[in-house]
């Protein structure tokens, strides 16, 4: 057993309002530079939709992640043989047009144009060539455009749905969508690290953050292919890869990452979990049906005395173990069983977990208009009262099976196709609501509330804890950041006096001039 700690995140999709504040916070700090204008280390996608870069989930196109190979796994589009064989030209790499060509506007023309008959305009210009362009696409181009033929209907997750179900999803009266914020998953079995021929990408032992060493990176671009989430990006100006660094300078100082700190909906949680590094390959090689469960089982109980002892023997500091015990991630993933990894079938063992959204699944039209009823077909639940949530039937979770938003779609995103797993999570979310409605409004009977909790596998105490961490949690409840102990690390690496008066970290060398 080789116990390590990993910084791990929860995104509660039911709370995401799709405001993109996270993206802007990240962009302003890290990617507001030449060569990375198109990069969004944090982005928010509308689902169903094609995402960013377009159709990133379709690994028939991009060949990202791992695939089963006998009893083990191998990289799908990179690795020692494929990677070195394709080193001169990477056939599966997304190019700038798969993201979008970055642009700005010539605002000065509005002010400085000579007087004339026409209103001056600010023409869009490419941030690559500096020449005027016709904008074809931009950041969040598909925002809120669910249902449109160009985006929602090309969502790679729809392949598991029957044509009738797809049609039902996209009827105007029943249109539903939700937001999927994405950052680097800081995986336990990262494809990007494994694919780097130079060895520039690495996982930090202390907290599991995956980083690119810019001095070692030679721009072979294999990581861009190998990351199935397309969260490593190529900087076309420096010729190096860059990715989300989980704001490690902030984490080391005890601050939440910028995207999480700025989150308006407070959907983001961060904490450490303990896991057994010896089991990574075994878990990543699991059979399809066991993969998600094994992934969740990899996370160890930080309250178990045997685990604590083994962690201490492995050099994990007491403060980190205490953080793991208070970790919101552990609560959501393990204690309550509410969160699932995104696309576990890529086998990178992502360490960002999502609480699946309840609203698009359960929300329904209020009073049915008889004229609309015929259009809706059998997929949608119809009833004649004006409850927003159907808590009135005897069969408490009856609406799940004929939900407005097919469960198969959620399962394709969060549980490698296992609908029961997603259903269990959504039942829990719903049970918490029924319980709280009983407590606060009182129009739901105690028996019914207790029955809902029992069916979902929760206790009243757990439901109240979930309610607290979901709705009332303070900053320190949402972000339990372990001490980095840089005071120990830095003593071992360097004498801090040497750094006085210097630039600090990084390098001041210009990156623009290459060759002569």
């Amino acid at each position: 057993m080789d116990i390590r700690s990993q910084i791990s995140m929860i995104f509660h999709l039911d709370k995401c309002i799709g405001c993109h504040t996270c993206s802007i916070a990240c962009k302003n700090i890290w990617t507001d530079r030449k060569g990375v204008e198109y990069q969004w280390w944090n982005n928010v996608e509308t689902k169903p939709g094609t995402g960013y870069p377009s159709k990133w989930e379709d690994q028939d196109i991009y060949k990202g992640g791992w695939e089963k190979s006998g009893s083990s796994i191998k990289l799908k589009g990179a690795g020692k043989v494929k990677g070195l064989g394709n080193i001169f030209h990477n056939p599966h790499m997304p190019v700038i047009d798969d993201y979008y060509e970055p642009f700005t506007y010539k605002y000065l023309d509005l002010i400085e144009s000579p007087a004339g008959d026409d209103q001056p305009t600010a023409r869009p210009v490419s941030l690559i060539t500096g020449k005027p362009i016709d904008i074809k696409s931009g950041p969040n181009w598909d925002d809120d455009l669910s249902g449109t033929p160009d985006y929602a209907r090309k969502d790679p997750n729809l392949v598991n749905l029957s044509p009738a179900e797809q049609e039902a999803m996209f009827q105007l009266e029943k249109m539903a969508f939700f937001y999927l914020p994405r950052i680097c998953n800081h995986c336990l079995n990262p494809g990007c690290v494994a694919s780097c021929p130079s060895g520039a990408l690495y996982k930090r032992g202390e907290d599991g953050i995956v980083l690119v060493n810019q001095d070692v990176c030679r721009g072979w671009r294999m990581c861009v292919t190998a990351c199935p989430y397309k969260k490593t990006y190529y900087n076309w100006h420096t010729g190096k890869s860059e990715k989300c660094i989980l704001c490690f300078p902030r984490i080391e100082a005890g601050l939440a990452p910028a995207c999480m700190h700025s989150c308006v909906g407070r959907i983001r949680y961060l904490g450490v979990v303990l896991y057994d590094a010896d089991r990574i390959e075994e878990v990543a090689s699991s059979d399809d049906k066991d993969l998600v469960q094994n992934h969740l089982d990899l996370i160890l109980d930080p309250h178990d005395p045997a685990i604590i002892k083994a962690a201490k023997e492995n050099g994990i500091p007491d403060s980190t173990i205490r953080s793991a015990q208070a970790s919101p991630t552990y609560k959501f993933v393990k204690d309550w069983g509410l969160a699932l990894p995104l696309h576990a079938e890529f086998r990178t063992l992502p360490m960002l977990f999502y609480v699946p959204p309840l609203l698009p699944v359960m929300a329904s039209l209020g009073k049915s208009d008889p004229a609309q009823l015929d259009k809706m077909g059998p997929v949608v639940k119809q009833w004649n009262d004006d409850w927003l949530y159907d808590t009135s039937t005897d069969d408490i979770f009856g609406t799940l099976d004929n939900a407005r938003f097919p469960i198969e779609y959620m399962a394709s995103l969060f549980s490698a196709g296992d609908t029961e797993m997603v259903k269990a999570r959504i039942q829990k979310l719903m049970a918490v609501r029924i319980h709280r409605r009983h407590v606060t409004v009182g129009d739901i009977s105690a028996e019914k509330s207790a029955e809902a909790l029992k069916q979902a596998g929760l206790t009243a105490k757990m439901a109240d804890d979930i309610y607290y961490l979901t709705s009332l949690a303070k900053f320190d409840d949402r972000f339990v950041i372990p001490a980095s102990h840089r005071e120990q690390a830095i003593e071992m690496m360097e004498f801090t006096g040497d750094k006085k008066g210097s630039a600090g970290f990084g390098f001041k060398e210009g990156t623009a001039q290459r060759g002569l």
Partner: protein
Amino acid sequence: MGSLDYFLFVAFPYIAIAVFLVGTIYRYNQKGYKVTSLSAQFLENRRGFWGTVPFHWGILMVALGHLVAFLFPKLVLSWNSDPARLIMHEGLGFTFAVAVFVGLAALIIRRLTNERLQQVTTRMDLFIEFFLLLQVVLGCWIALGYRWGSSWFAADLSPYLWSLVKLNPQTDAVIAMPLVIKSHIVCAFSILFVFPFTRLVHLLVAPLHYIMRPYQVVIWYWDRKKIRDAGTPWSEARPRNN
């Protein structure tokens, strides 16, 4: 031997090698961040494929051919003693040379005509591309006009190169060569001369160590067990410059 010949075939090769060695070491140490070939595949993919793949595989094979003839001239001569094998050898080499020419020409045209690529192109990029093109044209010309190059390279030029290595330059064979071949040799040393200042440096950091490496890389900032052990002597955990 004229003083020009002496400069071109004795002094210049040594100067080129010295500049190559000092330049690459200096560049790697001082500007290691820039030891890459700025890939433009991200900005232009489709045309790049038809340039970069034939160019790279071609130049790899052609360079390997020159290297083998330089290192093992006797082996090459005995291989070439059979006419069928000679023609196969020359034919294969020429095919790769043509691949280099076609690929390089495609890359140059792509670089000159694509607006996005012009943003990541330096004057040195264009210089070295045209210079390599000149070298390839000279090489093809020699292969067609002065047969059979693989044999006389092994017989005449390999000894000359070895004499340079042994610090006892023997230039008689080289000076007697036709002008085209002389130009090819001078161009070759010129490429060596400008090598440290161009994007060619990326071939020195070819990631062959990837083959031996385990797939996953985990880096610890400090020895987590040692640093928490009060018994660890201060000499092991002491600040480096204190």
